[in-house]
């Protein structure tokens, strides 16, 4: 697959680092994996590091909305960091910007959670 995924858990935060291209082939599998982790480790915050993501289409949008809905039930939220301009366009166009918090680094994202 055209993607490399790294995940890490710290307290109730799940960090997901995506490198490559996020499309239907990837989201089909990733959705199951992340949903399981959220339930198993009582995750409240999902931090997507998109620094190395160079492609995303509407399948990726649906996938993020799905996780947003899942976390909302737990009073949690999604934080996205290090988007490149191409990905940011998809975020603006789709309205994802309105349901995700945006930061420039993972550290910033983590601080945001601690304050909340």
């Amino acid at each position, binding site marked *: *697959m*055209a993607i490399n995924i790294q995940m890490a858990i710290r307290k109730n935060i799940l960090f997901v680092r995506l490198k490559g*291209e996020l*499309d*239907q*082939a990837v*989201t*089909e599998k990733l*959705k199951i994996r992340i949903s399981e982790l959220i339930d198993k480790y009582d995750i409240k915050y999902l931090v997507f590091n998109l620094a190395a993501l160079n*492609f995303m*289409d*509407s*399948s990726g*949008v*649906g*996938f993020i*909305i*799905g996780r947003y809905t899942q976390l909302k039930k737990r009073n949690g939220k999604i934080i996205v960091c290090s988007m490149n301009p*191409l990905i940011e366009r*998809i975020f603006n*166009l*789709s309205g994802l910007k309105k349901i995700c918090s945006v930061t420039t680094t993972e550290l910033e994202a983590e601080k945001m959670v601690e304050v909340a």
Partner: protein
Amino acid sequence: MYNEIKTSFLAKIENVTLARTIGVAFLVNLDLPLNFVNEVKTVISEAVTNAIVHGCLSAENKFVQMNLSYDDVNVYIEIIDDGIGIEDVEKAKEPLFSTKLEEERAGLGFTIMEVFTDKLDVKSSVNKGTKVLMVKKYSEQAKLSQL
């Protein structure tokens, strides 16, 4: 200057990456700005994903066709499936409309195709299939990038 390729591949979701890659490779000679190429890549991804997921219902024995061409002014992208077809094309094109919302679809594919191209034409008939034609003008973009 005219160029054209016709491709046909199985309706497997892995082949969406292939379709995007073919699209980018086909345009290499035109030396287009990265932003333009990325938009083409995105609309190919949208239309091919739709053909596979909705049209062919992920039946992996069906074929999806992708025909690409360009002339001096435009790039033409045509994605064809012989799947289930669309009952109401106008409704399908509406932002956030999806017949598969429960499968985490955003209903934004056609919206993105519309925004990223200059013309989107969808012809469909139920149980026969769907043909999506997109036209994207590059001549002005290319000139701009040379300034």
